[in-house]
């Protein structure tokens, strides 16, 4: 069967079971857009290519399947660079297809030519420039294989216009036809190292499981829960791992790091054994590295061996898939005499407000009810910190300024418990991560490593496309919203009913917070205005329902109204308190020992 390169490309995507792609056509990719008309694949027409990339990321983060974006050459391709860099940092599987000028024009500075394979070399797991239409099925297969196996990540396929127009004889490669002699990801951990890890784990007195995004990538949430419950070891979940272990679980300590809660941060600092599972000792978690968890031995499980010893030397470094390694670790523990503990399964949890981010979990809950009595002193120490340093804010009723944390708590309590939450980057992201109760994996979509403002709206749209059965809320900031809001036009026209809560404090809030705390309140270029633009008018102009909330009294009703709308997006403009800061906080470059708690809790810090 003879096909054009364009037809072969679309057919190859169909063979990969792609159900949706996000894109925007242009000159060089034109031939590829023609067979889309005849394809089963849904194409969602974005308003800016960055939106296509972030939508594909949101889709990938909630489904675990690779997100697909398709854009034209030159500016189309360079507009998708930010999502590629973001996906690379957060190990999100993406396949991005870019048009390219004809092979005969490459290198001549032709119209809309850019060296996108060169530009994206350092921010993709791999990329390909197709030079022969006959290679298309093989390269597409290789691209999906590379994007989704090992440590997942984004890949890019650049297809010149003349290649898309030339013809080839169709075939579909079998796995053995892939030409990747240098790509052999490890998945199973070394049994000797796993046994060593198991021995360390059983002798530790103050162990903490440091769960990262790799748990979600490996679909290891169940395995992690079994490990925690059978060993009685408490768990911190990083920003990338929120939801991989239920916040309502008594062993959950919540988020560590720069804005982590006191208990999670301090538990790691005082620990004698950190079991890092799919986490990478990011600077936002460790604070000053040479002061991080000084007494802790490290077990580091990661599918990417380059993460081992990169930031912190591990005592036991295991290369492998987190799920497989945890399962092997459980077997090793059993052979060392750790018994099953079905009778003591915890996990029923407290009420949502009791267990937010582990910070206000019911007193004593971490201490009691879990196996291995030897850990009881450690667990009760943690409980004491949780009781002493919960997350706090002060929402005065009525006319008092609306606190962003209150809005997030109301959202949490008024939406289904498996609601997917997307966020941008900044204060609102930290409030969302701190105050939401994540009890299910794949319900948190955010830009962790790259910290891309404007991520929330398009990634929420992609998430809703991937999980139309779930309610999807974006918690966004006013600064972030202005970066990518135009994608709500996409959502309206495609009838993708996402809901956006703008925590509108009229500032670039996180930058403002740093200027207040570290630049002597010299506010430089952070003021945005609460009503320019008019967010409600803007939302309505984009086909959404727009709601404005200024008083804490009106928060609940507005959320309920938004939840009742199912045929179009909803935007709520919450006018929040500009003076509110995110606490706790570890200043950049400071030791995690120097965590700053909310000013109301200062005095009597036992550390």
């Amino acid at each position: 069967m003879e096909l054009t390169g364009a037809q072969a490309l679309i057919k190859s995507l169909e063979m990969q079971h792609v159900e949706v792609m996000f894109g925007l056509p242009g000159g060089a990719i034109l031939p590829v857009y023609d067979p889309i008309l005849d394809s089963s694949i849904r194409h969602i027409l974005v308003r800016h290519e960055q939106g296509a990339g972030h939508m594909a990321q949101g889709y990938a983060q909630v489904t675990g399947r690779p997100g697909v974006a398709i854009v034209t050459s030159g500016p189309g391709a360079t507009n998708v660079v930010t999502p590629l860099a973001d996906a690379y940092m957060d190990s999100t599987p993406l396949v991005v297809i870019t048009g390219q000028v004809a092979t005969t024009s490459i290198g001549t500075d032709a119209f809309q030519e850019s060296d996108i394979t060169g530009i994206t070399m350092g921010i993709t797991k791999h990329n390909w420039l197709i030079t022969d239409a006959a290679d298309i099925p093989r390269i597409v297969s290789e691209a999906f294989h590379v994007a989704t196996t090992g440590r997942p990540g984004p890949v890019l396929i650049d297809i010149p216009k003349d290649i898309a127009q030339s013809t080839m004889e169709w075939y579909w490669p079998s796995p053995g036809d892939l030409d990747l002699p240098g790509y052999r990801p490890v998945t199973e951990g070394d049994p000797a190292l796993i046994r060593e890890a198991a021995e360390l784990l059983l002798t530790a007195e103050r162990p903490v499981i440091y769960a990262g995004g790799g748990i979600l990538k490996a679909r290891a949430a169940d395995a992690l829960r079994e490990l925690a419950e059978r060993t009685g070891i408490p768990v911190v979940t990083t920003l990338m791992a929120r939801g991989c272990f239920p916040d309502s679980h008594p062993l959950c300590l919540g988020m560590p790091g720069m804005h982590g809660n006191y208990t999670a941060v301090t538990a790691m600092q005082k620990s004698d054994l950190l079991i890092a599972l799919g986490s990478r000792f990011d600077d936002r978690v460790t604070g000053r590295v040479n002061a991080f968890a000084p007494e802790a031995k490290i077990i580091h499980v990661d599918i990417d061996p380059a993460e081992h010893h990169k930031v912190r030397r591990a005592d036991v470094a295991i290369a492998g898939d987190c799920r497989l390694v945890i399962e092997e670790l459980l077997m090793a523990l059993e052979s060392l005499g750790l018994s099953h503990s079905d009778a003591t399964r915890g996990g029923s949890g407290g009420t949502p407000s009791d267990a937010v981010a582990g910070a206000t979990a019911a007193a004593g809950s971490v201490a009691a009810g879990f196996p291995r009595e030897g850990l009881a002193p450690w667990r009760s120490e943690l409980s004491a910190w949780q009781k002493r340093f919960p997350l706090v804010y002060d929402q005065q009723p009525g006319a008092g300024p609306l606190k962003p944390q209150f809005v997030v708590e109301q959202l949490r309590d008024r939406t289904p418990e498996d609601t997917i939450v997307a966020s941008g980057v900044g204060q609102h992201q930290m409030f969302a991560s701190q105050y939401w109760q994540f009890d299910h994996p794949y319900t948190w979509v955010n830009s962790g490593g790259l910290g891309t403002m404007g991520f929330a709206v398009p990634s929420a749209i992609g998430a809703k496309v991937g999980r139309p059965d779930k309610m999807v809320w974006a918690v966004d900031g006013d600064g972030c919203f202005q970066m990518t809001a135009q994608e709500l036009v996409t959502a309206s026209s495609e009838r993708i009913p996402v809901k956006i809560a703008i925590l509108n404090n009229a500032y670039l809030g996180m930058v403002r917070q740093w200027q207040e705390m570290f630049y002597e309140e010299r506010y430089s270029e952070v003021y945005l205005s609460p009503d320019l633009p008019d967010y409600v008018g803007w939302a309505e102009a984009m086909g959404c329902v727009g709601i404005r909330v200024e008083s804490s009294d009106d928060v609940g009703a507005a959320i309920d109204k938004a939840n009742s709308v199912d045929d179009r997006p909803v935007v709520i403009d919450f006018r929040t308190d500009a003076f509110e800061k995110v606490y706790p906080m570890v200043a950049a470059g400071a030791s995690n020992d120097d965590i700053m708690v909310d000013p109301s809790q200062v005095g009597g810090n036992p550390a």
Partner: protein
Amino acid sequence: MSMYGTDKRHHTLTVLVENKSGVLARVASLFSRRGYNIFSLAVAPSDNPKFSRITIVVDVESAPLDQIMKQLDKLIPVVSIRELDPADARERELLLATVEAGPDTRGQVIQLVGVFEGKIVDVGPAHLSVMLAGAPSKLDDFEDLIRGYGIVEMQRTGRVALPMLDRVDHRGQPATGTADTTEKAG
């Protein structure tokens, strides 16, 4: 002044890569992006036309060698990496130089080339072009000595290397014990 010698800062990586366009750019881009220093780099097709061999002399003070190798290993077209400690490797390099050699000094230059077992590859009225292949430290010494006569132009290729053979093995099989070949991992 010695460029390499047996400096402990320098390790040699021989990297087998797929012979595809852009591979060298990927390797170079990785080094620059992660701040690893390259002292020399030589690339040529290997005995299998599907693969090329890149020999990189890296500065292990700029980053731990383990980290450099693992990051390199993540590049999809990198098939295998072998690390050679200079003490356990046979390293060779080629030097080409055009040297001032007027009537007064020509004899001395020719003699020097003879002592080092180099070759005269071109002769002009006032210059000689000379070639020397050998261990990098030998090239360093030669370079120091001819500098006195006046170097007009000089090029060095950067080194290539093979692991030392195991002398204990009387069956004459090549040794693998001293060299480290990493398995690919993603």
